[in-house]
């Protein structure tokens, strides 16, 4: 879809810049709320959630240094060693630009088969106009309807079901919900 650069909002620009760096080092997916927002849902958020494949400390050091070089700041620590420990303990790292507290990118390692499945099924979504890998729409709907379930999440799921009507696959949603019950609940 043709779109003017000026149509990109602050979240879009932040996300694309961050993802372009991550993409050099590992597989990643943007998940949850930002997928709905990038697909047109009108609600606010300060953070974008990202899952990355598990990488070695050496590779992470190079990634961390490049993020710093591009003026991204890790909110928890300036030390890549400490930051890596967060990831290995399945905690999220939060990155912002050095000159602004928001938006922020919350980065986690893939922690189980469900995350690995999401990484394998990743897709790009032309409707968003973004050159970013997203977790697939059916998986996101399943997470929001089966695990997260807040009014905001149910509205996100409804939005996704309408704007991506042709991509919605009830069989896959049902299978992912089953995996969520087995692995997360």
């Amino acid at each position, binding site marked *: *879809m*043709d*779109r003017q650069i*000026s*149509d*990109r*909002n*602050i*979240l*879009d620009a932040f996300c694309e810049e961050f993802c372009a760096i991550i993409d050099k080092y590992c597989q990643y997916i943007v998940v949850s709320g930002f997928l709905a*927002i990038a*697909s*047109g*849902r*009108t609600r*606010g958020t*300060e953070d974008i959630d990202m899952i990355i494949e598990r990488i070695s400390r050496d590779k992470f050091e190079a990634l961390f240094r490049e993020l710093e070089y591009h003026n991204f*700041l*890790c*909110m*928890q*620590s*300036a030390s890549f060693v400490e930051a890596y420990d967060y990831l290995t303990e399945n905690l999220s790292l939060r990155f912002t630009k*050095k*000159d*602004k*507290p*928001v*938006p922020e990118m919350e980065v986690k390692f893939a922690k189980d088969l469900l995350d690995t499945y999401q990484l394998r099924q990743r897709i790009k979504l032309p*409707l968003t*106009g973004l050159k970013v890998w997203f977790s697939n729409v059916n998986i996101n709907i399943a997470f929001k309807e089966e695990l997260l379930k807040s*009014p905001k999440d*149910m*509205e996100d799921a*409804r*939005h996704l079901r*309408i*704007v991506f*009507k042709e991509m919605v696959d009830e069989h896959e949603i049902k299978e992912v919900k089953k995996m969520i019950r087995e692995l997360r609940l």
Partner: protein
Amino acid sequence: MRDQSHMEQVERWANFVRDNPTQWKKIHTKFINALFQKNAEVIQRLLQQPNGKQKLIELYDIKNVEGCEWLK
């Protein structure tokens, strides 16, 4: 608690996005950018308060305070 009318509004807007692929983004971008503009204005006001910096460190749970150029 949000009622059914809110979900109906979500559905109306989602249908607009679906049916107007070249129109929704401009409206949406204006909305998202306005939220961040408001946030930036409040942060500037907070930074002018005596305990504003501390409030922001707590608000954003910042441990790497030295690295935050916007707090200086």
